């Protein structure tokens, strides 16, 4: 058995031994993926698994390395990039992925992606034309 296989087994025993917790946190992650456009918060998520929101927060961070909120924002931004690339307007995209105002969507998009949604969309269009 390679050294890496031994390390994988050790990590599995130390970090990933609680199957119940892992199944639960995967279901929460899937719930976020399937409901990212809705008004998601810790209260809603904790009700889906009938666990306290503090426990949920701790578990999610432990197994995914980020909070459910951070995961949700990344998911919404990823989806918004897809919609913008497919020609959906900035306003439509904003509401379709679950943001409540154009201002907060645009400023978050610019902070995380490095350009405004409109700039991003224009760049995608010009790239497609050049291709």
């Amino acid at each position: 058995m390679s050294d890496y296989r031994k390390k994988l087994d050790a990590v599995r025993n130390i970090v990933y031994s609680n199957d119940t917790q892992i199944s639960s946190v995967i279901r929460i992650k899937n719930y976020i993926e399937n409901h990212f456009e809705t008004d998601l918060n810790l209260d809603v998520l904790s009700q889906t698994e009938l666990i306290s929101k503090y426990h949920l927060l701790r578990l999610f961070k432990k197994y995914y390395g980020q909070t459910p909120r951070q995961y949700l924002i990344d998911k919404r931004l990823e989806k918004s990039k897809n919609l913008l690339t497919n020609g959906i307007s900035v306003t439509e995209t904003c509401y379709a992925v679950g943001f409540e105002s154009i201002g907060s969507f645009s400023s978050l998009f610019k902070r995380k992606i490095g350009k405004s949604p409109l700039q991003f969309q224009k760049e995608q269009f010009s790239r497609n034309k050049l291709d």
Partner: protein
Amino acid sequence: MKVTLISIPVRDQEKALKFYTEKLGFLKKKDSPLGGGNRWLTLVSPEWQDGPELLLEPAPNHFEPCKVFQDALMEAGYPYTQFDTDDVQKDYDRLVELDVEFSVKPTEMGTVKIAVFNDTCGNNIQLVETL
């Protein structure tokens, strides 16, 4: 500062180009001569062409410690780097059909599923699917 490039050491750039494009499905993005038969050779993912570039770097041929490090990783089974995928099992099945050798078959590790293959250029590469 932005992270736009990751590099992997390869023994033969042309062989690596064929493996990474024809078997893994990456696209060539930049290819320019650097003298002495070396090239600045980068690839991108087809579904994320404005994402980070993968530099196929002929360092092991020019810097002995790099070769020693690469050999040691290979010997111990450690991946040099990893790529995300939506479905590890599907990629595993496709790559096995193309005679790619895996040292770790699709294996669940908590909230991820992984597999490790030999890139035939001196490296183990890990595929990761978030569950």
